[in-house]
């Protein structure tokens, strides 16, 4: 199997609530240009381009076709990927497969979101809106017995249920969610490309009101305008054109059932179970030759729209035993200078341009491995293996990408 690595990452200069100074393709172009600059490459060096975002957020269909020239995609093979919240990593994995197939050698992955231009409810509730309105039209009571998914507003309602179940099964307390939130926001404060960059104490988090117990405002991610671009290359190209590389050693994904399940029967699967994450992680580790992730994985970038999810994903991805994540948190193991730095970037929890969020996870791992982190969140210890995780759909899609400082295949 062909070895493929990430050789360059480009971000928009900032990830913020509203980019009022540029339109959609102008914003995307900033990250594309940054990726070229950081790699010292030109569009002539790119063989193909993959592109992803959640298009209903901006109300533009097939936006890659409008953005063609801004992505420097003219006359090139071009494809659009869209998998909800995990679009970023699916788009990166598509770029990976463009190279791994043998058809292309250097491929660019472009991901982004400009949520300030749309109604966020389009994304968060819009997924259930047609079905919901259908039921309302037939007199169904959505806010009573069957209202789990909608009470508390869109995805937060379902996430609250997930958090409740997680706390119950793991033995973690709501204070652990506050602690994780504080840790990640403080990490984000060191990251110039993060959105929410205010150093946040546990007390600060606890002062925020509840949305749906146990989740507070201080536990939830922002919506951000921003773009993330990565350039991938095959092994022989890496030797020729790159001065640093982070190898993509394991890729996997798994799809389970939509969180609200069957509207007549109600919830089928406990959203804290996340069996798909276990399956995807196991596949990615096996592909990467990782036999004991607890020992071999040096850092994790996890897709956490909500602070409790960092703890949950650590367990589901096999980085610690079930019920142990909060124990690791308590002893400082998840800190940037700990044994398993988790979301040194601040995670989705601090920066969330949704189409890009799941690609920021592997790009942050890549930058850590290449020791090219700008800002103060470079992990001090050497990173040999990193795991990045993406999540999307109605709590149903998981993508996992394992990166390393050495290639594992070929």
């Amino acid at each position: 199997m062909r070895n493929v690595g990430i050789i360059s990452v480009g971000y928009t200069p900032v990830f913020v609530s509203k980019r009022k100074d540029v339109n959609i393709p102008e914003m995307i172009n900033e990250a594309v240009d940054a990726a070229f600059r950081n790699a010292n490459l030109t569009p002539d060096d790119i063989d193909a381009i993959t592109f992803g975002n959640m298009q209903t957020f901006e109300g533009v269909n097939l936006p890659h076709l409008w953005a063609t020239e801004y992505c420097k995609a003219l006359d090139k093979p071009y494809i659009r990927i869209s998998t909800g919240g995990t679009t970023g990593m699916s788009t990166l994995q598509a770029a990976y497969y463009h190279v791994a197939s043998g058809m292309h050698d250097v491929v660019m992955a472009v991901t982004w979101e400009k949520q300030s231009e749309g109604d966020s409810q389009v994304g968060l509730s819009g997924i259930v809106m047609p079905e919901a309105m259908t039921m309302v039209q037939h007199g169904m009571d959505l806010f009573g017995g069957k209202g789990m998914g909608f009470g508390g507003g869109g995805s937060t309602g379902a996430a609250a249920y997930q958090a409740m179940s997680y706390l119950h099964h793991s033995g973690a307390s709501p204070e652990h969610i506050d602690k994780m939130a504080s840790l990640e926001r403080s990490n984000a404060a060191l990251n110039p490309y993060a959105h929410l960059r205010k150093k946040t104490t546990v007390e600060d988090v606890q002062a925020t009101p509840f949305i749906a117990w146990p989740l507070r405002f201080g536990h939830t991610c922002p919506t951000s305008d921003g773009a993330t671009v990565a350039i991938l290359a095959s092994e022989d190209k890496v030797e020729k054109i790159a001065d640093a590389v982070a190898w993509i050693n394991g890729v996997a994904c798994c799809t389970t059932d939509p969180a609200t399940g069957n509207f007549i029967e109600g919830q089928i699967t406990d959203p804290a179970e996340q069996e798909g994450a276990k399956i995807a992680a196991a596949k990615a580790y096996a592909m990467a030759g990782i036999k004991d992730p607890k020992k071999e994985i040096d850092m994790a970038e996890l897709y956490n729209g909500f602070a409790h999810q960092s703890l949950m994903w650590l367990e589901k991805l096999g980085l610690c035993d079930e019920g142990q994540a909060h124990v690791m948190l308590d002893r400082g193991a998840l800190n940037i200078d700990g044994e398993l730095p988790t979301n040194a970037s601040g995670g989705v929890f601090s920066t969330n341009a949704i189409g890009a969020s799941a690609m920021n996870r592997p790009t942050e791992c890549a930058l850590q491995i290449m020791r090219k982190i700008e800002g103060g969140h470079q992990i001090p210890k050497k990173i040999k293996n990193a795991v990045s995780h993406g999540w999307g759909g109605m709590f149903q899609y998981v993508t996992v990408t394992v990166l390393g400082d050495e290639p594992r295949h070929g």
Partner: protein
Amino acid sequence: MRKIAIVAQAQIMSGSIGVPRERMLFDLVKGLYDNVGITRHDIGTFVLCSNDFEVGHTIANVFEDTPVGAYMKDETHVEADGMWAASYAAMRLMSGNYDTALVVGNSAGATTFRPYLVMDYQLNPTYDRQMGLLNELSTAALQAKAYLDKYGASEDDLNEIAARLLRNAAMNPNAVQSKAGATAGDVLASEYLYEPLRQLQCYPRTDGACAMILASEERAKELTDKPVWIKGMGNSVESYYLGERDLASSRSTKMAAERAFKMAGLSDPAKQVDVAEVGAKFAHQEPILTEAIGLFAEGSAAKVAQSGAADIGGPMPVCPSGGGIGAYCFSAAGLVRIADCVRQLQGLAGDAQVSGAKTAVAHGQDGFCAQHNAVMVLSTEEG
């Protein structure tokens, strides 16, 4: 590079599917598994293709995964024409990570969402959507006019092409629009939309889905004794800005075809291709696309078609299925073109069979006036 084949295909097209989308997908894909003699557990990776705006909610595939058997499986989603889903699935297999793939595209443009509106949302909101001048039909008409003007072709040529496609569609059990014995006069009698575009030169609103199973060499031979090999793939894209494009030709289709032919080792497509299924949404797009692919000399295809050159029994059969005029299902269309080529190459095309077909070309498009194009070369010969 690893050899990939299409093992089997299934499609359903309708002017009104009459069942919920999930039912349509389940019936189609389960039927496909049963025909091949496998279950969903035999599929290594799933690549779905559908469109948020058409389904009416974000993350188009959330309710599509379970009906096609992707529950607890490796699954991803392309949001483009179905041909891109097929080529991406092939790349996933070529990597060596998987041995089988299920590709499925679907939409319900006849009964769920207006296809012209799906296109309207592709207009950039900063200019074209506000100006309200460009839409799928007005842009198609400008493209038709550009072709007619540049090459001296006539509206009758376009009507003749549409009539041929309607006749072919009459032999296609999956056609939504067809007329046995259709003539150019029938098309002429249909209403002008934007001149020179007439109603019967346009694709019909279509509900439907198309699914296919791809497999690597060894697995393909286990699953079928008639694998159809993917010999070459290519795609390319032009500028969004219509005012900067030559609408009378298709630069990106030409590049896509060159890439696909290079990969397939074809040097003389006009001679080496036995049958072509191009994803023309309008009659005038057929000559533009077939010329770009190299099946006809530049500027000649519309007039040459008058002499029967593109007929099923002619020297260069184009769209024996009836093509996009018979049925055009957003997100599935490119897959349908591949599926119709597979039918030809497996000898299953019934009355529309091109005799002795060994090598086929399929094409799919996206965007206004085919801004983005993909070409796939298929063959009975493994090579």
